[in-house]
């Protein structure tokens, strides 16, 4: 193969999945000359698994991406078939939006955005090699010998690295959904000295909706209120499509029991580690054999297709067994299988090889993002893609790096978990992974992150002004309610009575009345109307901030402590071997992770408080030595 020079860029993004798309849009949006190279242009932002975006924790990530200036929220707002707000019966911290996507429209819309983005070139190509000199990335070489040079490179190759699809005892080299796998790049990464692990995931069969008997299933409609992820969306989709719910039964479980020996999971053919939160149906039946039934959701894959995703039936059993499984399920007895479910094994990076900017420690200016870093899920991939894109562009343009803290965003939690603790299974975000989840809410993503997006150049002047105005109105109204006294007159008492509360004896501050569990902002506003016009979004914000003030304050106090420890930076050239007091295990971990701050160091498992104390003293000693020396 004759190599040839094909151009030079600030940022090259390898891959245009959910991570790659965000990375490329962010880098170009920040003004970096950006190139995306991807195996198949028709598969941009493809969803190889469920046609769904959002949900607990993940939905908040989408909001965060939007607040930072990313694309996922806007795209799904335009291309969903239904949306639901989850956990509305619980507190504000765990409310989350979930959308069913029209898969094809989603891809098309993302592709269109990318095509229209200034500074962004898109090219179909298989990257085979990274060009590295003196531990610094120089560019990439593709299958056809094209050499692209760049200041920074982001690898977002998802499940493609040495991908292998497994169905029953059939196993073949492939990317997801029979796309070309990425073989040479996997070898190249290994040759460059990166530690790779083997992970696995799976997907259920798809069936044709015209062969489903919906009368035997339960309907699952979307919310009747219009919803959106993006703070910029103003047009809402109103014609929604429902999903449907059915269940497995004794017969389904019996089919599995009888055919378990044919499962590659149990025959030992699959060696990769699968995610616990994405178990195959055979896994569920074996591990929870006392459960008489499991839920099966039927999710349309789009408006212009009959294909339906059978959520809950992820499997790698042979196709003839999959058919029997479908036959056993009410509503699917006659369902025509369009694609069989499969498992896929792939190589992933050990993520402790990354800095919190997602730059690799080994090779300067090389970043990785998305499923290649050991995560699973579109939102997790997109969040990382955005951060890697911002940081790669920042590096190329000599701007400051951007690291989100655990108290800023779920994206911060995700990346910190990955680079500090690593993961021994495909990592999925859960709300319980966030220690400050009361602060990381769906409703306040803009308050948390818009400024960062604006500073980076991904939020327009106009949007930022609108945001500032909103923020100001919220603050003013909270102050007003703090001062306003509500009198115990008949109007007040009757509203309280109608809410089932106890009547007032004296006048009470507006905020204190609002703190009563049964009272809402609207109730208070009736008694003491605001002079300014507030949107529902603002009202919700005011209500949450006042109602849960006590808890929020507690969390903020913890965050304050965290920030202090985050501000204690560990110099990069620190020699852990020279610190005699630190325990051997802790030393090893510290050398591997190379934490940037004392806060990060203290989260490494195996590093205990005494080690941290000693580290603090040692750093302080170095600081004094430098000042006096």
């Amino acid at each position: 193969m004759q190599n040839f020079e094909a151009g030079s860029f600030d940022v090259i993004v390898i891959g245009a999945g959910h991570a790659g798309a965000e990375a490329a849009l962010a880098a170009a949006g920040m003004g970096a000359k950006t190139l995306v190279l991807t195996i198949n242009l028709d598969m941009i932002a493809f969803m190889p698994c469920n046609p769904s975006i959002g949900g607990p924790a993940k939905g908040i990530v989408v909001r965060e991406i939007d607040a930072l200036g990313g694309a996922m929220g806007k795209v799904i707002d335009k291309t969903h078939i239904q949306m639901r707000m989850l956990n509305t019966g619980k507190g504000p911290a765990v409310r989350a939006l979930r959308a069913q996507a029209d898969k094809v429209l989603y891809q098309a819309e993302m592709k269109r955005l990318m095509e229209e983005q200034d500074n962004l070139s898109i090219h179909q190509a298989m990257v085979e090699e990274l060009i590295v000199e003196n531990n610094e990335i120089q560019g990439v070489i593709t299958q056809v010998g094209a050499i692209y040079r760049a200041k920074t490179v982001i690898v977002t190759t998802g499940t493609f690295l040495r991908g292998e699809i497994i169905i029953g005892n059939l196993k073949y080299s492939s990317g997801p959904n029979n796309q070309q796998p990425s073989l040479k790049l996997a070898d190249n990464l290994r040759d460059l000295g990166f530690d790779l692990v083997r992970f696995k995931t799976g997907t259920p069969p798809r069936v044709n909706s015209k062969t489903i008997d919906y009368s035997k299933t339960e309907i699952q409609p979307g919310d009747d209120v219009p919803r959106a992820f993006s703070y910029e969306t103003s047009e809402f989709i109103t014609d929604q499509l429902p999903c449907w719910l059915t269940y497995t039964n004794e017969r389904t479980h019996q089919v599995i029991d009888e055919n378990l020996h044919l499962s590659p999971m149990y025959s030992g053919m699959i060696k990769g580690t699968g995610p616990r939160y994405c178990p195959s149906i055979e896994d569920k039946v074996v591990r929870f054999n006392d459960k008489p039934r499991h839920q099966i959701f039927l999710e349309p894959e789009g408006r212009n297709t009959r294909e339906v995703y059978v959520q809950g039936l992820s499997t790698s059993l042979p196709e003839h067994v999959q058919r029997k499984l479908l036959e056993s399920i009410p509503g699917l007895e006659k369902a025509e299988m369009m694609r069989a479910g499969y498992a896929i094994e792939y190589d992933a990076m050990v993520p402790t090889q990354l800095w919190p900017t997602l730059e690799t420690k080994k090779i300067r200016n090389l970043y990785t993002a998305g499923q290649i870093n050991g995560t699973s899920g579109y939102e997790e991939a997109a969040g990382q893609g955005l951060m890697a894109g911002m940081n790669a562009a920042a590096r190329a343009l000599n701007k400051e790096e951007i690291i989100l803290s655990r108290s800023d965003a779920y994206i911060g939690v995700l990346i910190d978990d990955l680079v500090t603790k690593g993961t021994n299974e495909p990592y999925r975000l859960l709300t319980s992974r966030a220690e400050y989840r009361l602060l990381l809410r769906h409703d306040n993503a803009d308050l948390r992150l818009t400024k960062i997006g604006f500073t980076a150049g991904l939020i327009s002047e106009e949007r930022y002004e609108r945001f500032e105005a909103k923020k100001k109105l919220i603050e003013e109204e909270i102050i007003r309610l703090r001062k306003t006294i509500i009198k115990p007159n008949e109007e007040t008492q009757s509203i309280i009575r109608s809410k089932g509360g106890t009547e007032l004896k004296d006048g009470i501050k507006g905020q204190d009345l609002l703190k009563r569990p049964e009272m809402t902002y609207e109730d208070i506003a009736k008694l003491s109307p605001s002079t300014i016009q507030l949107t529902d979004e603002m009202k919700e914000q005011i209500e949450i901030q006042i109602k849960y003030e006590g808890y929020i304050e507690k969390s903020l106090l913890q965050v304050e402590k965290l920030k202090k420890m985050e501000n204690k930076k560990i110099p990069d050239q620190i020699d852990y071997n020279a610190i005699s007091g630190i325990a051997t295990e802790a030393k090893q971990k510290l050398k591997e992770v190379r934490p940037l701050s004392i806060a990060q160091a203290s989260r490494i498992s195996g590093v205990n408080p005494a080690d941290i104390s000693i580290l603090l003293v040692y750093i302080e000693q170095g600081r004094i030595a430098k000042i006096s020396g």
Partner: protein
Amino acid sequence: MEFDTIAAISTPMGEGAIAIVRLSGSDAISIADQIFRSPGAKALSNQLTHTIHYGHLIEPTTGDVVEEVMLSLMKGPKTFTREDVVEINCHGGIVIVNQVLQLVLRHGARLAEPGEFTKRAFLNGRIDLSQAEAVMDLIRAKTDRAMNVALGQMDGKLSRLIATLRQALLETLAQVEVNIDYPEYDDVEEMTLPMIIEKSTWVKNEIERLLQTSMQGKILREGLSTVIIGRPNVGKSSLLNSLVQENKAIVTEVAGTTRDIIEEYVNVRGVPLKLVDTAGIRETEDIVERIGVERSRQVLKQADLILLVLNHSDELTIEDERLFEAIHGMDFIVVINKTDLEKKIDTQRVQELSGNRKIVTTSLLQEEGVDQLEEAIASLFFEGSLDSNDLTYVSNARHIALLNQAKHTIEDAINAAQAAVPIDMIQIDVTRTWEILGEITGDTVEESLIDQLFSQFCLGK
């Protein structure tokens, strides 16, 4: 000043009549103000630095007086740590000192980690560079020692109980989490507020019971239960009397204790002892049979420490040997009494029977050897290593402080649930309780909740 406020007992345990609880940090003075009342009701925050104040410590929630104290007020930066420092001087004895320590811990201070005062002094620039190495060594050494002591003092029963509480909390948490992270799963029982209240109340009650009965609590309130045994006439009662007299302790006969067992409370070098003389149950001829009497066995079983008295001027008898057998595996000290009389005892054999336990020789008649016995008791209690300032009682004081914190957080959770606060807020306090209890047993594996979630429930697509 960027550190929180820490506290510790800063005088060696059990020595001297005065003990000092030291507070350092930005809230040191405000914490002291909450619990200190001077005759003129002056607020410490308004007083000059480096002044000493007389007054009483009170429990502000009840108004009860805890102790009469002298309090030194030192405002930063001219202090050891360069932070605000308050030193509370109280009468010695671990009961009182620990009460004072717990009082400040309940009102906002955190128990200092090993070497933490020194570390702060260094980080605040009080100690120069050349000492940094020493500071690091100190932290390491103290931590290792504290770890050993903590492990040694961690009673198996206590850690099992805490593990049970944590598991119950974890299951509750997992159920709350599963409802949050997998709202579409209709076959998982929704964790309701009444269920949370029930579980939390149970945990709270158990914590309270633990606080009542935990080893440390018991020792603090009742003293280290020390049983004196031996054949008739070897000098058991004399031993008790001389320990009592030596220490001029106020002798209290606790109401309700059985007449035939004599109990005395003494304070030996800071260690509170509840001395039990088994003299009263001597009617039976055969000692071993006597020990076999149900109640006596009970006494033995509950003993934290046994003093086995032997007669120097007698040969070892079969009864002595059987006594050794009866106390096998327990903490005991062998006292060979009547050394003023001619030696007939086979010391070689006594040594064999004693294993690695301490042997002390006394002549109670001539008031000899009591000092050594006291020394042996104290060093046994302090594990021979807890001799220097801010480490004292770290493990036990820490357990109590943590249990108190856990009690508070679980109470917060119960109150919130009663006020119908959303479940994910209540969750914050339940999680905190689980974490605090984990600090006691040293279990802080972060993935446990997620592990529990996926083992308890069948989740995922």
